[in-house]
Every structure is written in structure tokens, then in C-alpha cells.
């Protein structure tokens, strides 16, 4: 129950961040787009803004972690092959499909974009199939 409340509260903050990014800077707050544009050099005049966004995104949770006495737990698998395969797929897929959970899921669906809705339904379905296969193979 408290997980749901924390989830909804955290979600509200994420939505406020996306709303501020849109109304202030006129941009879609998509994590894969902001990072990807820096990585492949397609970002030109707005490099500093992207770096500011990513720096805050990395350092603020680090500060919270330093103040939070409960042990850090991301629960990430220890299987390095799985991690590398997952990272490659996430990077390739989000750039090919032009967005991830924040860009398509939050910013796209909220404007009732057909592309955002189709992408979100598709990646959630693909994720569910993948987790089901992982569970079947005993990898979960």
C-alpha cells in the first residue's frame, strides 16, 4: 500500500519535472533523447542544458542516498552478459524508436500522441514477454 503512495507521489514529481521542462524550455523531457543527442552529437546549441539536466539527475539521487540510512538496493542482476545485452538493447531500441518511458510514456501519452501510445504499449508488452521468458528459464 505505501509502495503505491510513494509511487504516485514520485510520479507526480516526475510529471512536474516534465511539465517544467516543457513550459520553461519548450522541450520534451525524454531521458533517452537528452542523453542520446549528446552521445551521437546530434545535439548542438543545447549541449549545456542537456549536461545540466543529466548532472542534476545523477547527483541529486546520490545526495539523497548519502542521507538515507537504509541500504542502497537496485536489485540489478549480477549476470554481466545479461546487463550488457540489456544495455545495448535499451540504447539501440530507444534511439531507433525515438523515446523511452519518459518521452513516449509520460510526455507522449499525456498529449494523446498515437506514436507515444503505440510505443508504450509495445515496449510494455515486449518487456512482459521477456520477463515471462526469463522466469521460464529460471533467470528471474
Amino acid at each position, binding site marked *: 500500500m505505501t509502495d503505491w503512495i510513494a509511487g504516485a507521489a514520485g510520479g507526480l514529481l516526475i510529471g512536474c519535472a516534465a511539465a517544467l521542462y516543457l513550459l520553461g524550455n519548450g522541450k520534451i523531457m525524454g531521458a533517452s533523447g537528452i542523453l542520446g543527442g549528446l552521445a551521437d552529437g546530434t545535439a548542438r546549441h543545447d549541449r549545456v542544458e542537456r549536461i545540466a539536466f543529466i548532472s542534476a539527475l545523477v547527483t541529486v539521487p546520490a545526495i539523497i542516498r548519502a542521507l538515507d540510512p537504509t541500504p542502497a538496493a537496485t536489485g*540489478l542482476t549480477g549476470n554481466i552478459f545479461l546487463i550488457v545485452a540489456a544495455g545495448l538493447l535499451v540504447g539501440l531500441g530507444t534511439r531507433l524508436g525515438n523515446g523511452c518511458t519518459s518521452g513516449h510514456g509520460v510526455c507522449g501519452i499525456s498529449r494523446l500522441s498515437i506514436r507515444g501510445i503505440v510505443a508504450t504499449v509495445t515496449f510494455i508488452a515486449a518487456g512482459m514477454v521477456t520477463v515471462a521468458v526469463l522466469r521460464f528459464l529460471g533467470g528471474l
Partner: protein
Amino acid sequence: MMRILTAAVCGALFGIGLYLSGMTDTRKVQGFLDVTGTWDPTLMFVMGGALLPMAIAWRLTQGRTPRYGGSFPAPLQHRPDRNLATGAILFGMGWGLAGLCPGPAMASLSYGGSGGVIFLVAMIAGMLIAVPARRRLDTAGGLT
């Protein structure tokens, strides 16, 4: 300067939101995708919470321009195409395998251990592979 400050505030809020909602915990994300096991609905509440302010924000864009310059992104006119579908399938597979997507991967960088760092490096490599991959898909053409 205000644009840079706004971007930093958004990154900070995004990071706090991801942390608070538990979305940097890969087990909660995989738990949401785990419909054949013990399903964890948290991600749905996160999504719902995030959609609310954004739906209002899109309404507020009408008849206005962004506070700190530029213009609002026009809705993409083209329909979902092959690149969108292929990309979303590949992304969903990777998301299911590790329970990480780009936002949480960055937010948990400081406490996700070496695995988290390796994921981020692999993800950036995947983003770079996407450039020639997209070119190939576009020239392979025909079947859009």
C-alpha cells in the same frame, strides 16, 4: 542562463521522483512486467502520477510560447512506423532483461554498483549503434 537552471531543476526533480517512487529498484520494474508471477502495480501509479501534471502542461502550451525561449514541439504528423515498432520491441526486451530504462539508469548511477555503470556504458554504445542501424533500416525501405 535560465534555460540551464531550468534543465538542472528538472533533472533534480526527475531524480527525486524516480528515487521516491522506487523506480530505480529493478525488482519493482521487473515486478510490474512479471504478469505470470507476483505482479507489482507500483509502476502504474508512477505513470498515473506523472501523466496528471503533464496533461495540464500540454493544455497550458496552447496560445503560448515557452517561458525561456524557443517554441513548443509540434505534434509529429506521421503515423507509427517500422522504426518506432522495432525500437519499442528492442527497448522492451532490454527493459525486461535488467529492469532498467534510461532515466533510472542515470539516477541510480551513484549507488547501482559496477553493474549499473556497465549498463550505462552498454546503453550509450547501443545509442551509437542506432545511428547506422537507422540508416540501414531506412535504405532497406519499402516496408514502412
